[in-house]
């Protein structure tokens, strides 16, 4: 993925300016910067939710440029998990995976729930997700991420609300994703678990959009 001279002004306030970045296979880019600097805005812009003031985001697939960035990216918002709160865990995962073109049967969905120990007969079906705890909702969102064939992950505070055990599951999942040639852009206040994985750091809000190799 190639980001060239991306800049974004929110309500006329310049958040990041002329930010350029190459992200290749297997790379984990850490988005650093003080609170309110625009880290989440940067991820949302790359995800296509916000119109950048200037600059482009280009996606270079192995067999040539990717037409629709949405095929290549899976986005995990910071303070939300994109779940139909009145519906069950399996229904949620089935919906998002079907939109990605995967036709998974319920048992296949259950196996995807297992690593996040959400694969309990009482929890996985007919149990509204709104009754889940914050950590359980986050784990369900991460299960969606794991199911997604998208090559690039845009992670906004992925470990928010996770306990230590879920944290290690996520770290393994992330390293497998990177090993398979995927990449990820991540905003995270807690960097300890990802020490070895980060290949680049982008500072937003400090010096204007510079890129330092970690």
């Amino acid at each position, binding site marked *: 993925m190639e980001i060239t001279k991306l800049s974004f002004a929110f*309500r*006329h306030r310049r958040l990041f300016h002329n930010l350029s970045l190459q992200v290749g296979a297997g790379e984990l880019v850490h988005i650093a910067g003080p609170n309110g600097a625009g880290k989440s805005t940067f991820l949302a812009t790359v995800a296509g939710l916000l*119109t950048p003031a200037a600059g482009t985001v280009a996606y270079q697939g192995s067999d040539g440029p990717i037409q629709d960035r949405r095929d290549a990216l899976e986005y995990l918002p910071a303070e939300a998990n994109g779940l139909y709160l009145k519906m069950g865990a399996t229904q949620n995962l089935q919906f998002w995976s079907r939109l990605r073109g995967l036709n998974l049967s319920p048992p296949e969905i259950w196996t995807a729930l297992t690593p996040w120990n959400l694969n309990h007969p009482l929890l996985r079906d007919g149990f509204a997700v709104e009754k889940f705890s914050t950590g359980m909702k986050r784990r369900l969102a991460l299960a969606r991420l794991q199911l997604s064939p998208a090559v690039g992950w845009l992670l906004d505070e992925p470990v928010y609300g996770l306990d230590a055990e879920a944290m290690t599951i996520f770290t393994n999942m992330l390293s497998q994703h990177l090993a398979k040639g995927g990449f990820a852009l991540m905003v995270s206040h807690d960097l300890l678990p990802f020490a070895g994985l980060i290949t680049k750091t982008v500072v937003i809000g400090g010096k204007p959009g510079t890129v330092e190799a970690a």
Partner: protein
Amino acid sequence: MITAEDRRELYLGAILLTLVVGHWLAAFYYAPVDEHQGEVYRIMFLHVPSAITAFASSAALAVFSVLGLKRRSEASLALAKATAEVGLLFTVLTLATGSIWGRPTWGTWWTWDARLTTTFLLALLYCGYLLLYAAMPTGPSRIRACAVLGILIFADVPIIYKSVTWWRTLHQPPSMLRAGGSTMEPEILWTLVLGIVILCLYGAWLIRFRSRNIRLADTLEAASFDQLQT
């Protein structure tokens, strides 16, 4: 404080305003007395141009809305918002003069005449547009939402007009708002056409002037956010 540009704009506005007043004088003295309605038909020279400007504004709103969708710029939104405001002004003026004209002509302040009813709905649609503009936070999503509504309004006006006209013809033959029967004497016709042209130009001037105010206010809002930053 007033820049040279403002001054030029105001001169143009003053000229247009004198043209409007000049036309009014022509409407009073140049146009002959109408054999059916006598003198009161002279209200037509304000009522009809105002109505046409109001409906022309809905077309302008649609044009700026399509521009807004294409360019997604605050400038086109400012123009669209100014158009909705001026359009509302002229619809209200049309309704007021229509009802004042109706009083001596039919003895009532309001009749469900197809054109008046459509104008009334157009006023509500303009209010809806301004409400949506006020209800949305500044940004691209507001530009898009207002643009789509602007197009919807323009698409709906003809349907409203046709349905209201049919609704009225079932109950009452088309009203006699058109003074001097179908063939107007040339003096009346020309005075009316002149009035329409002048008022449309004045309306356009109002839209331009108001939209520059909106742009100015947007820039100051941006500056206040920058001020927040330092």
